[in-house]
């Protein structure tokens, strides 16, 4: 069996940085970071397949010093990140020999994280901690040690896939958005070079050796001259002004900005960094730290698809995808053409525009897209991130168990084994998994006045939520009730195709078996909860609260509903009641009472208009009961 190699060194040749086509802003940002590593790293954001990783890996060849580039793989466990005890040394000699983790190995070099937004939160916190202190602490199995870990963080991410916490974001000195080369000539050149590289990597690298060397030398010259470069007072003032204007919290934005301007002057071989330098790098240093005013500007863009303005370019909004149209505003009068009791089929409306809370609060392209929830799992699925002493019957973490046992070996009877393990050594695996929520819509499709609108609203909401589903791993389902029964129109799914098909036609009309609807919805939710007890489902009820079909023949439908609601209200299942009975201003009664019995949040449909159902549901914060009934 092979012994582990001391360092993971993939032998695959690296595509030369100098041979990258286009992407000038990204290259500049990376070069500036190589000239002044104290700038604090670069975050590269962009759509898939835009050479983000190729550029980041290529940079390692231009980096000063021998520490080079340490890659943090997505599946890394905590012990490898912060370090741990050397198992072999502990077993064979009983000595506690600490072993450096990736963070300490990256000291003086680059810590490279591909898809930084997919990193486990716990690992992200460890990285942040080390980045902030320049130090990594190891407190394990009776060992307490610290290593220097002054690294520059280089990360890539596709914002469509999820966001990064503001704290982590702030750790990056510069952030740059990339998009695919749009000019045909550039794209052709790119294909040619890529094919040439793949056909003969070493030959290709030889061809580019000279430009590559020149680039490295220029970066080294820039680095050497960095300390001599003066910064004009005007440039300092401008930097301060721009940072303030951007509303960036703290001094880090300003400092990055000034350092980047200085590095730019060094790169261009000038002795003075002026206002022009600050302007060139301003967006690189500020875009990801910008705080926008919350309510002043509605962001109509689909989250994640808007690109940051590149340095030196006009800053007008540039959208790549047309925002979805909002559902029609309420007309305030009922649809007079609709007769009671008639069956109607409503076309699924175009989906809502998606405004998640994050995008409104923090604005812009970076922080806007869906967050995938990562939760600890109990059933053995998911990714092993760390070990725990707590005994909950999870899978045993062998590595951690052996490490815990190792220091005690000299004092234990081994009875022929090379290692004696006792029960207090046992460690269990903590596994996390990205999971989404379950959002179940319960829609009143009875023949009351607003059913058409309600149906459209519900369909649009289902569709919009599903648009986000792939990112957040949410599942959405739809139950409707009309006539004498409730129908499961869409069992919980994240399949766009399935939803599309089952939502195409949605009949309405007839009586209002609200109780049956509630029961059916709860049956579905309970079934899902049995499978995953931590699901935290949300049931969204769209109704005008006028039940007229009781579960038990002869019962008073209204009394029955309230009793049912009280029975169904339980922690672990949230309800949102959307009251579509907007006709009478003073008639809040029925739905309100239902909401109270269910301990549900309550909104009026017309109020929802201004806020948007999707946005309301997208909130991570628990919905407050009774909100919005003014």
């Amino acid at each position: 069996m092979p012994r582990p190699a001391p360092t993971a060194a993939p032998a695959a040749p690296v595509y030369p940085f100098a041979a990258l086509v286009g992407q000038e802003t990204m290259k500049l940002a990376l070069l500036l970071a190589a000239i002044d590593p104290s700038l604090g790293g670069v975050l590269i954001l962009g759509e898939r397949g835009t050479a983000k990783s190729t550029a980041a890996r290529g940079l390692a060849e231009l980096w000063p010093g021998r520490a080079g580039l340490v890659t943090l793989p997505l599946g890394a466990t905590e012990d490898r990140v912060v370090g741990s005890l050397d198992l072999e040394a502990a077993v064979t000699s009983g000595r506690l020999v600490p072993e450096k983790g990736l963070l300490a190995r990256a000291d003086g070099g680059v810590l490279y994280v591909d898809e930084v937004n997919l990193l486990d939160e716990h690992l992200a916190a460890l990285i942040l901690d080390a980045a902030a202190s320049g130090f990594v602490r190891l407190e394990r199995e009776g060992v307490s040690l610290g290593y220097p870990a002054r690294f520059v963080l280089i990360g890539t991410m596709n914002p469509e896939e999820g966001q990064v916490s503001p704290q982590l974001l702030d750790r990056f000195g510069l952030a740059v958005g990339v998009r695919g080369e749009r000019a045909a000539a550039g794209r052709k050149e790119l294909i040619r070079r890529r094919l040439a590289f793949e056909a003969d990597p070493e030959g290709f690298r030889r061809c580019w050796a000279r430009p590559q060397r020149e680039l490295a030398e220029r970066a080294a010259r820039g680095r050497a001259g960095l300390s001599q470069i003066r910064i004009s007072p005007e440039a300092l003032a401008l930097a301060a002004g721009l940072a303030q204007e951007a509303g960036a919290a703290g001094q880090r934005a300003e400092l990055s900005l000034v350092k980047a301007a200085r590095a730019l002057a060094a790169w261009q071989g000038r002795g003075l960094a002026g206002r022009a330098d600050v302007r060139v790098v301003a967006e690189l240093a500020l875009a990801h730290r910008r705080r926008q005013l919350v309510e002043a500007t509605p962001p109509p863009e689909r989250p994640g698809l808007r690109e940051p303005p590149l340095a030196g370019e006009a800053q007008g909004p540039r959208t790549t995808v047309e925002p979805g149209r909002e559902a029609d505003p309420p007309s305030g009068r009922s649809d007079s053409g609709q007769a009671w009791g008639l069956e109607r089929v409503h076309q699924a409306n175009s989906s809502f525009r998606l405004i998640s809370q994050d995008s409104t609060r923090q604005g812009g392209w970076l922080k806007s897209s869906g967050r995938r929830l990562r939760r600890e799992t109990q059933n053995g699925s998911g990714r092993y991130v760390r070990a725990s002493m707590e005994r909950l019957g999870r899978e045993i973490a062998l590595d951690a168990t052996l490490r815990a046992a190792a220091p005690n070996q000299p004092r234990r009877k081994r009875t022929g084994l090379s290692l004696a393990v006792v029960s207090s050594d046992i460690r269990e695996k903590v596994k996390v998994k990205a999971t989404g929520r379950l959002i179940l819509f319960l829609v009143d499709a009875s023949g009351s006045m607003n059913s058409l609108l309600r149906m459209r609203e519900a369909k649009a909401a289902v569709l919009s939520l599903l648009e986000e589903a792939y990112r957040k791993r949410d599942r959405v389902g739809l139950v409707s009730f009309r006539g004498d029964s409730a129908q499961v129109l869409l069992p919980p799914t994240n399949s766009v195709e399935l939803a599309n098909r089952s939502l195409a036609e949605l009949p309405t009309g007839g009586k209002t078996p609200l109780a049956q609807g509630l029961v059916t919805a709860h049956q579905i939710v309970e079934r899902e909860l049995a499978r995953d007890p931590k699901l935290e489902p949300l049931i969204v009820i769209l109704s005008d609260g006028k039940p007229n079909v009781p579960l038990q023949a002869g019962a008073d439908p209204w009394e029955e509903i309230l009793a049912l609601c009280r029975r169904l209200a339980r922690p672990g299942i949230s309800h949102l009641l959307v009251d579509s009975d907007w006709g009478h201003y003073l008639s809040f009664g029925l739905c309100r009472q239902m909401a109270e019995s269910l301990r549900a949040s309550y909104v009026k449909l017309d109020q929802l208009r201004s806020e948007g159902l999707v946005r309301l549901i997208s909130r991570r914060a628990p919905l407050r009961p009774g909100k919005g009934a003014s």
Partner: protein
Amino acid sequence: MTENHPVFPFAALVGQEMMKTALILNIIDPSLSGVLIRGEKGTAKSTAVRGLAELLPELKVAQGCPYNCPPDPRADLCPECRRRWADGEAVEAVKSKVKVVELPVGATEDRVLGTLDLEEAITAGRRSFSPGLLAQANRNILYVDEVNLLDDHLVDILLDSAAMAVNTVEREGISFSHPARFTLVGTMNPEEGELRPQLLDRFGLCVQIAGLDDAASRAEVVRRRLAFEAGPESFARSWRRQGRDLARRLARARRLIKKVRLAEDILDQAVAISLRAGTDGHRADLTMIKAARALAAFEGRREASRQDLFLAARLALPHRVKRRPFEEMVFDLDELLAAWA
């Protein structure tokens, strides 16, 4: 892993031409990075992959290497093979059939990536790496049925390895990396959930398959299937010649591909098509070009034609075109290609 019972011959598969083409192109140029097969169950996906593997020439591997490293000191090797060559140990070459390594939906991360070797750790107190499925898959075919049902993080890891051709493990006290160069074949039924666009993009080609709809072909499928089940050996024998021809053709294409010329206007068109289709990034054009090149090689030509490119576009674009859910494809590939033809 070795199967003694015969595999349904690739050449005997009825219809599903796009799927067969996509698989063949990946064999000719493994850098096409895989095929995603979308469609219902029971459409001979796994049969096709196994049948194709049968036709491939045997690999030369270093004896005893769990990573199937080639017996060649200049190749991309696992640490143990590197050490063996460096220490001047004899490395014996053995032949091995190309395997179809299956990744089950319930696979755990340890199983896929590899993990700490339990036995070695307990008996010798030594830390060593116990290889996983990615090790087995090196230089072979990795088949992931229902890839859309796989845990997200596993898909991330899988596609990362596929893209880098390396499996880097930093977990459970282990720091290890080994070559992981494999042809990835994934299948999914879109009704059971979508794959994230980021992941879709990592599959080089994508085909949509459906059950056959003409009665004659359906009858032929049943007839052949029954014949195979009645006498697998004799059925396989009766298709052996076609299989050999195809194998020879594949071998020729693999040699020829390096010599296939790509005219300027083919590059122009590839770029124009992917700009027009509005795909993200650059993988679309690059894949299209590579697929066209492989098609030309398969046809025994030294120059990629416009027809090659159009067919390549049908394989490389469908999963990369930006579209919003609930809208049918924003652009019509047929229309687009017709405009160029």
